[in-house]
């Protein structure tokens, strides 16, 4: 029987966990025996079909940065991002699939075949990024049975392994992204209240601040630039990461800088780091406050703060939280592994719901008491033309139909009206985002809806959006008078546009490029 798998596809590290015979999640080490695999890729110089993923890719990056890729998760869903290697443009989905392929390959050795998996994503990922992540899993040969928000996965793990109860805030500061999620936890019953995320706040941003300190020190002493090549940058990026880690344990970190104008010894203190990252910490504090406001909860009402992600080891992070909530955050579990472990639990719950016959009785029993209620991650709406009260003119605006943070499954309807006499067609658009201004929201699907002609203006059109527990969205546009219905298929391309199917030559080519690659 195939294993039930959860994968934490992280910005800096990835991990794979499976559910053991009694439904407890366990991290499976990679081929190097490591529990975490660096999310780094290096395309071999000798054999272009060989792709190195993990620690070897990190090391090779210092020798040939041109052929290496890191932090690809930051580009997920970005249709314009490509890494060109040997005349082949690798997009973020393909690159991510190489990492997943490595995890699947390494972990299949001592375990059953790895097939069905849940992959975790940041809570703030939009539909396009979620779909891109699923596509990466499919391309890697996985059957992606679901996507779980990272803080939700972490909370599931915390809730099932620790005594956690009441109003809980999950503070997930990872390598590249930051999420804050509010939960109501009672035993093994976990209700998500709301999530907020910052796509550009994570460990690599702290590393960059350390790197700026190093560059400044060198510039101040020699009046020259420390970094002269991509390889230099790769080397000092990794040095900066080490310094940051050291400063989580000690007050001072020391390093030798070897630059073009001479060498120097530099000491970076914890205070210097804290000063350098103060704006980033401000961003983190704002996000926590925004999440609390969204949940309508005062900091004093929070019972526990759970830490997730390696960057939560930074002492300043913990100090800020302690100051804000008046108590120390919970640090009992491994902050690097809890997302992957929770994703495996989520995979088990999904399998129990979708294919209960495929779940072994031991696992089934282990998961029996866990009850998770997730919420809608974004607001969904449509484009309409309401009258502006101040100007008396019609304006094009986004009207939200399904509100963010509505518990799943959910459904909501609103009625709109045709604008002109004899209107025989409507352009119906499914939007994602809170802004009323259509320039700032994402149009995730646009369709033409033909209407009976020869009717006066003001004919009602009922719009119904539904969101199920598998985070799939269903949209229905109904002409009330004629009962004509348009149901929108929300299968997304990577750029966020809608497609009916994904069987194009291009997708076949992408599939075969990943398939051809020998991942080591």
């Amino acid at each position: 029987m195939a294993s039930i798998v959860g994968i934490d596809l992280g910005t800096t590290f990835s991990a794979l966990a499976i559910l053991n015979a009694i439904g407890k999640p366990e991290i499976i080490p990679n081929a190097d025996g490591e529990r975490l695999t660096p999310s780094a890729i290096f395309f071999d110089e000798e054999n272009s079909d060989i792709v190195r993923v993990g620690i070897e890719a990190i090391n090779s990056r210092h020798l040939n940065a041109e052929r290496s890729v890191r932090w690809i998760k930051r580009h997920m869903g970005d249709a314009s991002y490509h890494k060109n290697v040997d005349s082949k443009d690798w997009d973020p989905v393909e690159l991510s699939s190489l990492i997943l392929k490595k995890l699947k390959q390494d972990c299949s050795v001592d375990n059953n075949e790895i097939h069905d998996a849940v992959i975790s994503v940041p809570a703030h990922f939009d539909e396009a990024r979620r779909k891109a992540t699923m596509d990466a899993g499919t391309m890697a040969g996985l059957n992606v049975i679901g996507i779980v928000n990272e803080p939700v996965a972490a909370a599931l793990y915390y809730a099932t392994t620790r005594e956690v109860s009441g109003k809980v805030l999950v503070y997930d500061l990872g390598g590249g992204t930051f999420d804050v999620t509010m939960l109501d936890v009672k035993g093994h019953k976990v209700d998500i209240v709301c999530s907020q995320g910052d796509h550009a706040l994570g460990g690599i941003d702290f590393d960059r601040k350390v790197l700026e300190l190093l560059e400044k020190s060198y510039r101040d002493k020699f009046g020259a630039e420390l970094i002269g090549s991509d390889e230099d940058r790769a080397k000092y990026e990794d040095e900066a990461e080490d310094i940051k880690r050291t400063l989580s344990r000690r007050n001072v970190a020391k390093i030798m800088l070897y630059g073009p104008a001479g060498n120097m010894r530099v000491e970076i203190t914890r205070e210097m780091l804290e000063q350098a990252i103060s704006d980033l910490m401000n961003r983190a504090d704002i996000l926590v406050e925004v999440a609390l406001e969204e949940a309508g909860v005062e900091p004093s009402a929070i019972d526990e703060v759970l830490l997730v992600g390696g960057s939560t080891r930074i002492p300043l992070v913990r100090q800020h939280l302690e100051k804000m909530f008046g108590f120390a955050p919970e640090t009992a579990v491994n902050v690097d592994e809890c997302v992957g472990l929770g994703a495996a639990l989520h995979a088990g719950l999904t399998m129990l719901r979708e294919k209960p016959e495929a779940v072994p009785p031991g696992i089934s029993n282990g998961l029996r008491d866990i009850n998770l209620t997730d919420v809608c991650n974004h607001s969904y709406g449509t484009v309409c033309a309401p009258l502006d009260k101040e100007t008396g003119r019609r304006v094009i605006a986004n009207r939200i139909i399904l509100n963010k943070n509505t518990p799943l499954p959910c459904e909501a309807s609103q009625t709109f009206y045709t604008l002109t006499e004899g209107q025989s067609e409507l352009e119906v658009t499914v939007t994602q985002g809170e802004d009323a201004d259509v320039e700032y929201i994402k149009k995730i699907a646009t369709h033409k809806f033909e209407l009976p002609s020869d009717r006066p203006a003001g004919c009602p059109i009922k719009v119904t959006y539904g969101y199920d527990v598998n985070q799939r969205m269903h949209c229905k546009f109904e002409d009330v008078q004629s009962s004509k219905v348009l149901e929108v298929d929300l299968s997304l391309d990577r750029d966020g546009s809608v497609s009916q199917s994904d069987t194009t030559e291009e997708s076949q080519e992408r599939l075969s490029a990943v398939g051809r690659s020998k991942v080591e």
Partner: protein
Amino acid sequence: MSEVLISLSILLAASVAAISSGLISRSGIAELASRLKLKGSTCLSVLARLANGVKSKDLVGQLKQAGSIGDFTSRILCDAKPEAAQNLYAPPDMSILNCRVRMIELKDGNTVIDAFAVEICGLIHAPEDIRRATLRISILDITDGSSEAKAVRARNPQGAPSGESNGSEFCYVAKLGRLPRQTTTLDDWTCVARLRSDGQEFCRRGRRTLRFDTSILSADGGLEFAHAWCTFVYDNPLPGYVDLQENDERTKVLTVALAFAVSAADGKLYDCEVALIKDWARDNVLESRAQTSDQARGKLEKALSTTVAFFSEGNKLDTRRLCEEVVEIAPAGHRYEILDLCLRVTQANGSVAVEEMAILKDLASRLEIDPEKFRTMAEKILPLDMHEVMDINDLLGITSDMSKEKTRKHLNREYSKWNSRVTSANPEIQTQADQMLKIIAEARGQYISAGR
């Protein structure tokens, strides 16, 4: 169309003339014109000559004068002598149909609305075989005399935005049913219609002499049994459709003037800014290029060139007074359009000077645009990297009267807004959102975290 052109030419020519003209008040011009008893065009040319000969920095005064002359001229030229106003107490001639109008108040929920009560009395004679009758009431504005009668338009009184009419002439029609006799005599004044005053749109605001024509017709409207008319003087509180059209034209002229003022604010009149304003003027002042005569186009081009020359010489406009006039005559929608053009003019050369930002803020305030809406417009059209100097308070909408707590909440709201835009598919929005998130974090450090 020609009126629009004249207005603009006057404005722009006067703009230049006014540099050297003296300050003349609206009432002063009116008085002068009154004494001269000149016709409109003569009055304008006299004024232009007058303006040319007098030193003044007050262009706004000239702009206003151009507008006031239009109003004033129509009044002195068309010194209305309407038909004798009705006398409610005069005994009616019972051998014919008579009508009269009284002003009454109608209740609509909690609001009271003025209405015209149309009353008739006297004789109605119908043919023997056609007795089913219809009442029809039409209204004409004869303030300027019967020969210059203006239509009274129908307006949708419910829910329509101010000034929105359906364009058709007002006509009230009601079925009267079957007349009891071939000859019907109404001995007493009988109210046959109550017409809400917000159901009509008059040509101008103020005291209007209205002619009410009341007809009793056959049911099919083909045969008139009886007809009566009367006049009624009504003080119209709302701008009329001619007022609105004039205001609209005047607003366009003022828009061009303000856009030039913004363009010149940093002391430089860039070609791209001038081109943008000229294009706007061509598109909006000459509404339909295809139907515009070469002469009109020529006048506009000349006026625009003169205005460019005016600003190129370093002259300034009194934008305060221009804005005051805009607020007086232009609806909110037009004021937003002005600001939009001014923002786009600022955007045109790719950078926002401190002086430009200052004048934009000032215009927004004087045009009574909500500060938050102005900021929203500015964020959209003038992204952060265009600003020569970044004022965090301006960019984030932080005001000096905000407490620390209010600032914190405001910054949180701004953060939520920009954080949701940071994954936009549009790279420009994405970049701006990234920059905004950075300055929000800085601002928090400055205003909130400093006391940690």
